[in-house]
């Protein structure tokens, strides 16, 4: 486990945090400091401008927001609980641990918050066809589900490698009537699925909306996806005030593109006494091609629409990544995360595959909760962090998704491990 140190932006935030003006993040052209922006082929530029305009209008329309709230409550199952993990807390013997149970949402993860928002927006734009990329399949399942509900045509792009390791989710998408297109180019994982989805959109943007699944890509996606997920942090804040009468000391979330994390963190940004930590995928360790910890092994670059931290070689070619979790197995991180890290507001750590496996088993044993491998990265960090904190301190983990989809993969990994050890 890598706990952030001073040189990776892990300094305690209270001494250096500037005021964050949320009204200018992003600025009018979609930048968070130097990050973000709109680095897309000309064919998509106007489409993105139209989308931004439509989104801002929708956001200001009480009827749209009311409808979204209704679906979030009645269809998705919000609010989710903030659950005191008493056994885990006792086991670790440090801070009081709370779990924000996004895993309890319909379709099994936070992803549906954003999908509902964007699907309603697509309907408002008069677009009848939806495309999306998916890594772990959670975003794909949420998209397929909502498209079934709203009667929208749905095509999901998914890397062939991910289709194999998340077969259950592929089946679920197809049950909902979505066409799942396997992507055979590149590394055949999430990044390649995004490329294919963008290629589709370049040709079809007039009648198709692309429901990007993370706080990534070109403006307005990072802003829009964040806004649709910020309800996670808003609920958490209200709930912890009700339960404990005070804010948590630390909040932790896993970061692939970073949608669950920004959704959780956004509400707490100006509460500088709340430490916010994102956990990236350390894979097999921080060596080229073995991980997806962009802030540990990456640098600033431009990929798939935005400027941000990413993993690339000296020439700028995007590097291979690895993570046990398909959802974090991605070469770039959301631009807003890069900005808040730069100004010292967010800290980042990473958890390795091995640590994640351990944390997964522990949470099952202690709490009877089966976390998604993605979300388990945040749990793995907490296993290390909580014992360093005092019992009167509070640590909140965003449990962004459930692990049913991962069970088969985990069984295989454990069997292999047993074989090696036995």
């Amino acid at each position, binding site marked *: 486990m890598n706990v952030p140190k001073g040189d990776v932006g892990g300094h305690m935030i209270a001494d250096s945090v500037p005021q964050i003006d949320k009204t200018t993040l992003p600025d009018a052209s979609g930048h968070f400091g130097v990050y973000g922006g709109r*680095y897309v*082929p000309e064919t998509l530029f106007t489409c993105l401008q139209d989308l931004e305009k439509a989104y801002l209008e929708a956001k200001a329309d009480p009827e749209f927001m009311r409808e979204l709230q209704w679906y979030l409550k009645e269809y998705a199952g919000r609010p989710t609980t903030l659950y005191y993990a008493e056994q885990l807390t006792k086991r670790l013997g440090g801070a009081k641990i709370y779990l924000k149970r996004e895993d309890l949402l319909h379709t099994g993860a936070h992803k549906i918050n954003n999908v509902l928002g964007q699907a309603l927006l697509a309907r408002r734009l008069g677009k009848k066809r939806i495309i999306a990329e998916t890594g772990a399949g959670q975003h794909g399942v949420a998209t397929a589900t909502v498209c079934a509900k709203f009667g929208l045509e749905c095509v999901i792009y998914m890397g062939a490698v991910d289709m194999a390791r998340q077969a259950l989710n592929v089946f679920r998408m197809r049950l909902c009537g979505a066409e799942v297109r396997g992507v055979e180019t590149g590394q055949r994982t999430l990044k390649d699925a995004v490329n294919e989805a963008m290629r589709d959109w370049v040709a079809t943007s007039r009648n198709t909306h692309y429901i990007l699944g993370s706080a990534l890509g070109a403006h307005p996606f990072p802003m829009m996806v964040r806004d649709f997920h910020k309800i996670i942090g808003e609920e958490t804040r209200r709930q912890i005030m009700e339960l404990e009468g005070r804010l948590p000391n630390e909040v932790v979330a896993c970061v692939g593109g970073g949608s669950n994390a920004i959704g959780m963190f956004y509400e707490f940004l100006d509460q500088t006494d709340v430490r916010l930590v994102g956990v990236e995928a350390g894979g097999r360790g921080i060596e080229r091609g073995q991980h997806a910890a962009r802030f540990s092994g990456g640098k600033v*670059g431009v990929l798939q629409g935005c400027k941000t931290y990413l993993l690339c070689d000296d020439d700028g070619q995007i590097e291979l990544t690895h993570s046990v979790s398909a959802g974090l197995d991605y070469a770039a991180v959301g631009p807003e995360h890069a900005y808040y890290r730069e100004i010292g507001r967010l800290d980042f750590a990473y958890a390795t595959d091995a640590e994640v496996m351990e944390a997964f088993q522990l949470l099952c044993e202690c709490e009877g909760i089966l976390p998604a491998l993605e979300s388990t990265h945040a749990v793995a960090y907490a296993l290390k962090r909580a014992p360093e904190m005092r019992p009167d301190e509070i640590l909140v983990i965003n449990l962004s998704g459930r692990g049913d989809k991962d069970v088969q993969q985990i069984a295989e990994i454990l069997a292999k491990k047993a074989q090696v050890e036995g």
Partner: protein
Amino acid sequence: MNRIAQQFAEGKAADRSLFIAYLCAGDPTLEDSFRACESVLEAGTDLLELGVPFSDPLADGKTNQLAAQRALQNDIHQKDIFTLAKRVRGITEKPIIFYTYYNLVFANGVDNYVRQVKEAGVDGILVLDLPPEEADEVLEACERHDVKTVFIVAPTTPPERLAIIAEATTGFIYYVSQEGVTGVRKTLAEGIGDKVAEIKEHTELPVVVGFGISTPEQVKTVASVADGVVVGSALVNCIGSNLDNPQKAVSTLGAKAHELVGGLSL
């Protein structure tokens, strides 16, 4: 006068469009790629567009993706691409432009990249995923090093953006006649002439048309309304379908380029 302007001026004087050939640099090897460039130039190419292979070419169709993948699998690096460009510059005075993606330009510093482009004898750059709105640094570097900029206009580009794009362009404007990625199409899009005329209301610079052009007849049709005709995937296919026989690849490519150049005088 720079080579790009010079070539278009010559074309205009002779009342003919330019034939612009796209090839992926380093596909499948540096040596083969040099022969391929040589072959399309001998066939009468007026301007060479060298695609710089990128790991994530999201504006490209299958043909160009595979070409880039072949080059990268053969361990071709940025320095090799510059070497190749220099070598091609050694055999021609025709303009050469790079067709690339922004992360490759950005990775080692924009100014540094553009300087090396100039030193390699390359006359202009087209960065696929860089709209004028994000291009300040590239525009400044290009001006500093006298490298021309090429920007794209798409069928989805509204009239109000044409002025922005024209303002940023110093080489020529590239109208992509199809919504979608690069690749061969059976039919040409309609209304190309109107769109070219609309673009020309905003710029004195040449306007070329590309995406999906693969037959001499299509070349002829496009040449009648544009200052240049770009052919890419139809040429790259000649290499991709003869990977087991590099000599045949080059001869097939030369014949195809010759046939397509012939479209200009149909």
